[in-house]
């Protein structure tokens, strides 16, 4: 059915352990080779943990699905060496248009903040992302990606998990010291563990269509409220690569998905939307429904949940895959520290603290968008329409128009791993915030701050500092002016980097603590705290 894309079939291989009838325990097993599962495996590998990924299928996502990847996930993939490839393949848009009924309300230019290596977002079909991730897994000596491995049972033990796995060669058992379930919104693992998936705020259905344009069409994001070709609902159009456009039709809860999916119903609607003279071909169409909910606890003993298996949001703001990838970023370094005996297991409970907080923030944002897009009462519809009508001429009303707020990282403001400031700082880089990128110079060549942070803790200093150590974990020093040059002054500005200032940065590039001058004792205590050592 797809004209622009051929699905790869990845080869199933029987594992040595299954062939030889051995039961092997792995430090980390990931269930699900979607964007989150593969990112999780690659990040574990990046941190030195050999990781097995099990997937019951042998290809990539069908249809475009997740489409929009925001800056922070791109930075995470860039840390894993994939950022440039994804940005090169993806599409970036700058002009957005908002329509109400049959008229253009206003248009806007995205003016992303300058001086970041990664763009504010790219659009890319999920199958391309997954293909790139599969290649990276295949190239990694520490990732063992196993297709056609279906997990039938999960038995948690006190210090490991026993998995019953079915392959084309039969059933065998394997063990994981830590099991990470990235098996999606309808996670079997979640069901087998018996975890609650709660907080269902609303339900809706979407018809999503991939369309190939036969002629030039502008690279813009178009959002309609209550358009004449799809009354009382919303429609979103945006571009992906290969001249494939993605259209999301909101259907409402009462619509009959099978009826709505029929080409004779979809095609006239799209033609009315694009205009009579725009030739196109329907490439893929699907109906999906969503709810906003999250798992009770992200960690159930030795079983840890990430991505849609842990939280589900509406599609507005591209918060699904984007937040899932940030789950991985948060989890991997903590797992590594616990596996190495450098941190207590309680460090993994902060994965729940930080990522459940982010999931709740995503659910809040996506609920707000949904309330604007689908008003629930006559008066809220009136207010929504009033905002849209005002927005035609009144700039003040435009920030109230909510067609989805682009996913940005949630700062972990209440994290127990943070050391609170004791001195005033300007700017956004408070403890619990992800590090903003900045252009730098190293060895006379231009580069980027985030690429200098490496895989461990770092003391980013604007003056003298020395490495500190807690057990086997060292925070090395990256001194501005010595190890890298802040030629443009952007780094000092973003970090309020007055002379002497020191930041303690976690392996996931989040600020743990900061001071106006280096103090060995304070830095050591903050490092211990960031590793969840008691009484730190």
């Amino acid at each position: 059915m797809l004209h622009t894309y051929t699905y790869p079939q990845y080869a199933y291989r029987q594992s040595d352990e299954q062939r030889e009838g051995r039961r092997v325990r792995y430090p980390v097993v990931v269930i699900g080779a979607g964007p989150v599962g593969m990112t999780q495996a690659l990040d574990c590998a990046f941190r030195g943990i050999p990781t097995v990924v099990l997937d019951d299928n042998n290809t990539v996502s069908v249809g475009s699905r997740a489409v929009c990847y925001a800056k922070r996930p791109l930075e995470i993939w860039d840390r894993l060496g994939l950022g440039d490839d994804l940005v090169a393949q993806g599409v970036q848009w700058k002009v957005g248009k908002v329509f109400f009924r049959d008229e253009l309300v206003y248009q806007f230019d995205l003016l992303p903040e300058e001086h970041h290596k990664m763009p504010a977002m790219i659009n890319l079909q999920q199958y391309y992302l997954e293909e790139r991730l599969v290649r990276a897994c295949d190239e990694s000596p520490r990732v063992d990606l196993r297709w056609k491995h279906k997990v039938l049972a999960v038995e948690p033990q006190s210090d490991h998990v026993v998995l019953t796995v079915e392959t084309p060669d039969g059933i065998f058992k394997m063990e994981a010291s830590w099991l990470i379930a990235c098996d999606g919104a309808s996670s079997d693992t979640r069901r087998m563990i018996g975890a609650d998936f709660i907080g269902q705020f609303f339900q809706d259905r979407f018809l999503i269509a991939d369309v190939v344009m036969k002629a030039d069409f502008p690279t813009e994001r178009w959002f309609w409220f209550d358009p004449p070709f799809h009354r009382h609902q919303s429609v979103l159009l945006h571009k992906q690569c290969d001249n494939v456009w993605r259209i999301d039709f909101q259907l409402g809860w009462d619509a009959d998905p099978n009826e709505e999916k029929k080409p004779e119903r979809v095609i006239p609607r799209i033609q009315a939307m694009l205009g009579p003279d725009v030739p196109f071909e329907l490439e893929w169409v699907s109906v999906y429904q969503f709810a906003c909910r999250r798992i009770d606890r992200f960690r159930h003993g030795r079983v840890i949940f990430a991505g849609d298996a842990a939280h589900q949001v509406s599609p507005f703001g591209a918060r699904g895959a984007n937040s899932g990838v940030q789950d991985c970023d948060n989890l991997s370094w903590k797992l590594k520290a616990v596996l190495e005996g450098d941190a207590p297991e309680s460090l993994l409970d902060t994965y729940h603290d930080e990522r459940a907080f982010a999931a709740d923030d995503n659910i809040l944002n996506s609920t707000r968008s949904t309330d604007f897009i689908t008003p629930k009462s006559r008066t809220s519809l009136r207010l929504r329409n009033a905002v849209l009508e005002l927005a035609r001429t009144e700039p003040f009303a435009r920030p109230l128009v909510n067609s989805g707020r682009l996913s940005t990282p949630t700062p972990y403001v209440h994290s127990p791993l943070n050391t609170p400031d004791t001195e005033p700082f300007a700017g956004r880089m408070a403890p619990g915030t992800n590090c903003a990128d900045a252009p730098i110079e190293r060895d006379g060549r231009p580069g980027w701050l985030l690429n200098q942070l490496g895989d461990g803790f770092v003391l980013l200093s604007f003056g003298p500092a020395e490495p500190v150590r807690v057990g086997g974990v060292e925070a090395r020093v990256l001194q501005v002016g010595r190890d890298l040059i802040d030629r443009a002054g952007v780094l000092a500005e973003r970090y309020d980097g007055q002379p002497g200032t020191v930041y303690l940065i976690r392996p996931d590039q989040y600020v743990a603590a900061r001071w106006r001058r280096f103090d060995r004792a304070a830095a050591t205590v903050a490092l211990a705290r960031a590793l969840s050592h008691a009484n730190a």
Partner: protein
Amino acid sequence: MPLNRHPHIIDPDAFYEELINAQRDLSDEQAEMFLAKLVLILANHVGDRSVLSQAIALARANTLAVAPPH
């Protein structure tokens, strides 16, 4: 800043007349839209989130304090 709950409009009769006149020739639908827009325009002018929250709470409490019509 506390919400001003004391009389603050100069010549209240003329203001009220203007408010009524502005929607006199509108349909009910248009009049409701007019009121919604007026709320948004004034809310933006006020801007102060704490004042807006107090105003929203006052309007709600005042409405709930009145017995609903049969």
